[in-house]
């Protein structure tokens, strides 16, 4: 199977000096449902902006379905459908004009575009509004309009930058169902989000980005099990006997330091009972600083602030 996206050594320094990406490598397989998760300002939109030709990269390469953006830009662009973070359609145009024009920019003939407009606007529950100017839509409808627009040229990979920000839970769920459905039909999906819950619901693979670096790139399952494990560092007296721990992953760092991974559900008793059986004394113990863990605390806070904001928006 082909790779939908291959990014190598991607860097971006904005005018003014902000280093938004500090060398990113990322691979997304064809057919995947992939999440790019990270807190505010991590570099998610910058990454997507570069893939979508809205931002000029400073270094690195981007290959989309085997077409390198530097060598084969027209083909590379045709593979992608983009749903940006911010609304970027002409507010005075009607829904039909917006989606049909977008199809035209990808070379889709008008008659075909009109048929597809009906299909996608209906699927996204916007057909009734087709002749209304876009500014008259609600926020959730505007997001769905951007999804319809991105699908008009039938791209192989759909990239969505925080598609569910500011959308109420009911519409969010129906968007999830819709995305899962088109993914089942074979479209690769890459989305960015603040919500771990959203990534958990939808995605098979995930990359976590923070301060312009990928700090984790794994399957959703792998991530969840990592999050459920805590690492402890135990200080032992010098020249202790080498302990053996059944049922735990552990590393002897030197003759007086032991590192043990403990699943949160299991607890520490098992470690201590085995150590005392073997006559190993524990002088002190500390929690190993876990970057992933720290990041998640921040993410959860971001997510909570975002939902508070969403609620404020909804209730005016």
């Amino acid at each position, binding site marked *: 199977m082909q790779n939908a996206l291959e990014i190598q050594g991607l860097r971006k320094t904005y005018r003014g000096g902000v280093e938004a990406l500090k060398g990113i490598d990322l691979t997304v397989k064809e057919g995947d449902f992939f999440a790019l998760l990270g807190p505010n300002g991590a570099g998610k939109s910058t990454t997507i902006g570069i893939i979508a030709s809205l931002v000029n990269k400073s270094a690195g390469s981007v290959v989309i379905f085997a077409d390198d953006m530097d060598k084969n830009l*027209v083909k590379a662009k045709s593979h992608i459908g*983009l749903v940006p973070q911010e609304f970027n359609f002409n507010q005075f145009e009607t829904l039909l004009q917006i989606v049909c024009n977008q199809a035209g920019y990808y070379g889709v003939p008008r008659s075909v575009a009109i048929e597809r407009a009906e299909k996608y606007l209906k699927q996204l529950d916007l057909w009734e509004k087709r002749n209304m100017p876009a500014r008259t839509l609600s926020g959730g409808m505007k997001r769905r309009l951007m999804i319809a627009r991105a699908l008009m040229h039938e791209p192989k990979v759909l990239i969505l930058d925080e598609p569910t920000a500011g959308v109420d839970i009911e519409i969010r769920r129906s968007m999830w169902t819709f995305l899962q459905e088109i993914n089942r039909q074979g479209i690769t999906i890459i989305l960015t989000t603040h919500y771990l819950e959203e990534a958990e619901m939808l995605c098979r693979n995930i990359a976590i980005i923070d301060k312009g670096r990928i700090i984790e790139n794994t399957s959703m399952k792998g991530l969840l099990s990592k999050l459920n494990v805590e690492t402890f560092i135990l200080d032992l007296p010098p020249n202790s006997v080498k302990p053996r721990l059944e049922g735990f992953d552990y590393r002897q760092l030197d003759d007086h330091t032991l590192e043990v991974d403990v699943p949160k559900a299991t607890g520490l008793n098992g470690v201590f009972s085995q150590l005392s059986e073997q006559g190993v004394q524990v002088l002190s113990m500390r929690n190993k600083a876990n970057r992933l863990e720290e990041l998640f605390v921040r993410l959860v806070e971001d997510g909570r602030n975002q939902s508070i904001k969403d609620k404020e928006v909804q209730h005016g």
Partner: protein
Amino acid sequence: MANLQFIALKTLWRKECTRFLRIWVQTLVPPAITMSLYFVIFGSLIGSRIGEMGGFSYMEFIVPGLIMMSVITNAYANVSSSFFSAKFQRNVEELLVAPLSNWIIILGFVGGGVARALLVGLIVTLVSLFFVDIQIHHPLMLVTTLVLTSTLFAAAGLVNAVYAKTFDDISVIPTFVLTPLTYLGGVFYSLTLLPEFWQWVSKANPIVYMVNGFRYGFLGVSDVGIGTSIAVLLAFNLALFATAWHLINKGVGIRS
């Protein structure tokens, strides 16, 4: 591939035309009203006291210049405001993500400006028929100057919009450069009326060549050589299209 670019161009051009037709009260009506006033005041009221100019009645003399004036303003205004608002509302991104070439973006916007300029030119011509009988001396020259002038100012409007950061920035050039140059560009008088020094200065004004080339198409008279007119038009077109291409390619003002 060629087909993709062709469909994209048609789409963008159609969108540009839809835009100025949708807001026809702002785009098509004002030139008709302003030009009617010019015809009434300068042509009928004052013109009857001025007598002949360049061998024609004053009204006949100013009609080509006034058509040209509306062509210039409308070509410029259409592209500068459309492209700037596409930047401002960010819907220019719809074009940037798509596989159309930068030439198509330029041609689509310029094509929209040309369509509005020609339509307004036609409206002003029709209005002028109420005041004067129009004769056409040299149709080919008329069409050539008309088309080249509208492409020139449409491209200039695009360059302006690329640099513009606020709505004010797209009215600075029309107010402080285009309007004075047009009024001093031989729309209302023949350069031969000026002292020699000012004739010489006027010939540094490119709009003189456009107005006179166009007037030659109607009346067969011109203050400057018509070969020079065409050469000036071609040179400015070339320079402006090259600039526009360079700017869009580099993504000035549209890609960070």
